[in-house]
């Protein structure tokens, strides 16, 4: 039997890590929590979970040197999963903390949901990926967010969801997957997504590098 893949889960805050770890274990991985950029450099799989606010999270990623290591992982195309705020942090900026620079891997901004809907969005909503998606399938996922990505950047394959406005509920590119929803809280559908990413991502690293050439 193949050894369980090691997954470095970046500590960006305190909450919800137990759910992320339990979800990854159910998907057959061996996750560990780290604040050390060296772990994020050398571990095959990395998860950037998101909890809390955009500004403080960026402060932490910059302060620990994690931000640079994540950008390096993106250039190398190494398997990386971003969850919830994690997806937002990949962007340039957010309405949540104007003036704070995000990781800038995606040259777009994060917006707040309109006043016409209850905020935060809490609950299960329908995710519809484009047909070329490798990991994502149609289904219902659990969301807990007040901010959203209005559009997907070129080179990324999006899934869309509607909450007051249409928004990007997930994006994938090579071995990178970023979800606005919580796969670890999305029942069997979310578990399958984690398994898809764990099993397929290593074979998609090269494709990501080619795209960037």
């Amino acid at each position, binding site marked *: 039997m193949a050894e369980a893949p090691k997954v470095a889960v970046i500590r960006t805050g305190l909450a919800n890590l*137990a759910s992320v770890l*339990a979800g990854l*274990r*159910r998907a057959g991985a061996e996750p560990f929590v780290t604040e050390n950029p060296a772990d994020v450099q050398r571990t095959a799989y990395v998860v950037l979970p998101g909890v*809390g606010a955009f500004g403080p999270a960026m402060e932490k990623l910059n302060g620990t040197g994690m931000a640079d290591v994540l950008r390096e992982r993106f250039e190398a195309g190494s398997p990386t999963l971003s969850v919830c705020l994690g997806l937002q942090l990949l962007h340039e900026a957010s309405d949540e903390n104007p003036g704070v620079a995000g990781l800038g891997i995606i040259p777009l901004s994060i917006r707040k949901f309109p*006043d016409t809907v*209850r905020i935060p969005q809490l609950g*299960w909503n329908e995710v519809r990926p484009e047909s070329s998606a490798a990991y994502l399938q149609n289904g219902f996922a659990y*969301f807990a967010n*007040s901010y959203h990505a209005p559009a997907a950047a070129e080179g990324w394959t999006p899934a869309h969801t509607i909450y007051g406005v249409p928004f990007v509920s997930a994006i994938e590119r090579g071995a990178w997957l970023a979800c606005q929803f919580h796969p670890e809280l999305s029942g069997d559908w979310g578990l399958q997504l984690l398994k898809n990413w764990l099993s397929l991502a290593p074979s998609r690293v090269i494709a990501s590098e080619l795209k960037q050439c």
Partner: protein
Amino acid sequence: MLTRRIIPCLDCRDGRVVKGVKFQGLRDAGDPPTLARAYELQGADELVLLDVSATPDGRATAVETVRKVREMLSIPLTVGGGVRSAENARKLLEAGADKVGVNTAAVENPQVIRDIADQFGSQCSVVALDAARRLDGDGWEVVVLSGKKRTGIDAIEWAAKVVEFGAGEILLTSWDRDGTRSGYDLQLLNAVSRVTNVPVIASGGAATPQHLLEALDAGADAVLAASIFHDGEYTVGTIKQFLSEKKVPIRP
């Protein structure tokens, strides 16, 4: 479209699920992780675990119960009961809660709501608002200490205030209806959901699928129930089937 949530509630004491009317005459109702997993398989959208023990030993057991439930569960878990500080919340979140509910402590010191929201985000800060009709019948007041103490605080004004303090969700329990099987207090629900822009979970009084439908029609984003599920009279699945037929958006 965002679907409405069906949320079974597990009242836990000393590592077991218990049930009773208004926390009186508690009876054993099962093993928390086993019941939690069963509800997920039935189609529950989320679970609430309420620690109804009142002792420090009980609180420590609750953290262990959360840990065991988390390993079994791949849907969201809200934990409440006896949370007095951001530090209490942190222990529960680290053990595997996704959201933490504060009740009595928030009434005594609303700053605790802000502390939890600041440290962990509004999306995991739930305020459990227990309300009862005023004795003169005019409006509702907040009750604390498991309904034992009336505070005189207007429940509707309090709902608006907790949102200002950073609550991301309100778990609204009608203390008049809890355990009575006579349906949710729809007027209370409607009044609270009108003054806030955060999701509201209706609780207290559900005995039939029709009661859940009424609450969702009255403005609830989610409905919580305990005995209706524990008694095995209905499963989450049969209730979701009923609500789907009534055109309520439900996760299949």
